[in-house]
């Protein structure tokens, strides 16, 4: 189980980096979204992945090793909210860039870098 999750996180990171290296705006957006998901999934997994064990302790303090840590899950919620906000901003920004600069190639966005 843990091996599969590690593999999924790895695939998510690889594909996000691959997509961000492409020239198209749309692939950049997908890459950024995948990067956000990969990060969040990474943190979520760090709390431990357990089956049928809600993190509610009453007398079962000795079973504390068997249940997942709920704090990373809470952190994940905060991170999801923030990263979705930023992702929406990126989508709107790229749409505006597409309208104003009239290009869909990231390599054309080089006027601020050139030496005049």
């Amino acid at each position, binding site marked *: 189980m843990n091996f599969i999750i590690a593999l999924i996180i790895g695939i998510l990171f690889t594909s996000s980096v691959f997509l961000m290296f492409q020239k198209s705006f749309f692939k950049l957006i997908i890459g950024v979204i995948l990067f956000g998901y990969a990060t*969040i999934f990474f943190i979520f997994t760090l709390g431990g992945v357990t089956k049928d064990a809600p993190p509610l302790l009453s007398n079962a303090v000795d079973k504390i090793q068997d249940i997942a840590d709920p704090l990373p899950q809470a*952190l994940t919620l905060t991170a999801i909210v*923030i*990263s979705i906000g*930023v992702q929406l901003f*990126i989508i709107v920004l790229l749409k505006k*860039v597409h309208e104003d*600069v009239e290009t869909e190639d990231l390599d054309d966005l080089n*006027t601020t870098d050139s030496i005049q």
Partner: protein
Amino acid sequence: MPDLPYLILPLWVLLFGFIASLFFWKYWKVQQALGLIFSALYLLAAGLLLVAVYQNDMLVLQIGNWPAPYGITLVADLFSAMLVLISAIITLAIVLYSIQDVSQSRKKKGFYPLLLIMLCGVCGSFLTGDIFNLYVWFEVMLVASFVLIVLGNDKAQLEGAVKYVILSFISSGFLLMGIGILYRLTGTLNMADLAMKIPSHPNQSGMTISAVFFFMGFGIKAALFPLFSWLPASYPTPPISVSALMAGLLTKVGVYAFIRFFTLLFVHNTALTHGFLLIVAGLTMFFGVLGAVAQNDFKKVLSFHIVSQIGYMIMGLALFTKWAIAGAIFYMAHHIIVKSNLFLISGIVKHINGHSLLIRLGGLYRHFPFVTLLFTISAFSLAGIPPLSGFWGKFILAKSGLESEQYFIVFVSLMVGLLTLFSMTKIWKHAFWSNTPEGEDMQLTQPQLFKNKYMLLVASLFLTVCTLWLSLYPDLALMLSQKASEQLLDPQVYIKKALNQ
């Protein structure tokens, strides 16, 4: 002093300012007045905070009265309190400057509320004592800065913002993963608790791995080599008020996080981590200044200088002696004020000529002696000419480098100082000394500048006076930086106070 919640006062002031100006969304003049009032109040609150911290060594607040390692802790030591005060000085200057610089259409779209909430993020990052809370404050700051950088929708602004936004998003991802690894290994997010657990933790290589993630996260935010490419692409594009604020403050929040993390948390293997930081510091200085030498635009030269100056601060951290860190802190204070002021002056030049391309500028020395005086003081201070403030910072850093027998980095830093002076003389020669090129008209004369754009000069004069004070009476600032550095190098006090033991 009366018993007030000094620690949280600056945050309250900024948050109230933000909410109050949201109520006047359609009346930008009211927002402008509120911006001015609340930035003055913020300066007052930050001054009170510094005095209170100086008297009590450290101020600690447990939010919601949750006991220490479980709730969120706010901690202000001298280092954070100093930076809060400097950020308040800059904010007041920028708000004064923006009155006659930022266009009405931008003010109508919420320039002042955004500025206040961004400062709230900056101030919160300085004051928090919890690593996840630090991430949240960083995001508050970043999201506000994303909007500020595209406000007005210029073509150049949009292009620069793409690079800035996407690299910031990636850096937040790295930061989050570092936090996750650290939590997994130690089971805590409180900085003081982490500082206690990391040195005795059995998995030392795990700590170094999480340090790498934090290096990537903060490195992008602080614009270290080789992660700085977004900075010169995006900082010169927005209106000068925004550029100056970002140039002065935002990268320094990254440097603050570096100094906090690599003095309090990751000191388990300083030979590896700080040795690596020293190499990166040298490369950052060198390549930053090479970029500045190559550029031909006033604002871009200044943007590349930010990168090379970040190298000096990281060099102080990497040398890791008492005086080196004190030098880094003094250098931060000097740099924030001087660099913002230089950006403000480049804005005045742009108002005079309508652009900031060096080859098409000229004649400022003849027609605008007052602006020239302001520029000279700041530029020579940045290059480190005695007796101006940059000299004291560089002197302390070079001296502690020699004492630690790191001769090569001292050599690099002195050579970079020379190249900084060279690129400043390039601006001096083209914009100030030479005659006005043929076919170029100035849009303002000196009396018109004094009559119509006097707020620009007031703001710049305010920062110049601060620079001169820091240059001619460095004792107070040096004493504070030295005490702050002592506190940073002795984490036991921090741990004790923050955990209420």
